[in-house]
């Protein structure tokens, strides 16, 4: 399997590190709703087909990537930088903690 890094081009799978399901949305860090956190940590969709997932090009440019891969055929239909597709996790974390500090 090869992944075409948007910066480096096509590279062998060995250069990449899987970083998990990209379908999850991190709950508000201030939330104490156990069901919401349980779902975030443990629930996975496990589709037979297209799956959005995070990969890091750890043995290359080290960018974090959002990959759409078929779990049936390993066909990759889309690769992009995570920061182009989702709000920055760092920023949402900062927003969450400032909320906590103000309370």
């Amino acid at each position, binding site marked *: 399997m090869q992944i075409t890094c948007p*910066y*480096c*081009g096509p590279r062998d799978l*060995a*250069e990449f590190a899987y970083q998990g399901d990209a379908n999850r949305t991190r709950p508000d860090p201030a939330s104490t709703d156990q069901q919401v956190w349980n779902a975030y940590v443990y629930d996975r969709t496990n589709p037979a087909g297209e799956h959005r997932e995070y990969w890091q090009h750890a*043995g*290359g*440019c080290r*960018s974090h990537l959002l990959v759409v891969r078929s779990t049936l055929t390993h066909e990759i239909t889309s690769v992009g930088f995570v920061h182009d597709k989702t709000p920055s996790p760092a920023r949402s974390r900062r927003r969450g903690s400032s909320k906590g500090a103000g309370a």
Partner: protein
Amino acid sequence: MVEPVSPLGAAWKPGSYANAAGVTGVALSETRPGSIVQAAAWRGEEKALIAAIGKVSGLALADGAGAGVFKDNKAAFGFAPGRFLVVDQKEGLGDTLAAAVKAETGTVTDLSHGRTAIRIAGARAEWVLAKFFAIDFSLTAFPVGAGRSTAHHDIFALIQRTGPEQFDLYVFRSFARAFWSALCHASEEVGYEIS
């Protein structure tokens, strides 16, 4: 100035090691730059960083994945989004570049003593490197001046093509001797000389 000690140590054995056919297909050397500096731009500040690198080093970097230049014993190339390696045979580039890059533009990290620069040159250089790295070394896919970041068995390596038949490799200093020894073994097939 203190004379830097090569990490290659006893593995550095200058000489000519022809293959069974009496041919030496590659030349291996350690280029020992005085300055190896990493510069990283905050997002959106890439052009300002490229301008600062140009001002300090005199190297005009094109804006694009892996683009780079190599001339007058200096080198610069992109190896990740917004990140560049800048190399000078002279010492002191880390300080001059750090002074030229504003805090709002990005960061400058002096890696001069953290990386070892190894050069492989000759007609069979592409062939030998292709044993190590799963990337396309052909001149069309990897033009002169361009840089690539890749890995050999988890040993991270930055590679710049510095000539039609010449590549400069930057590896972590602590892995340099092992990498160098492996490179010598891989070169036995085509014959090599060390100078």
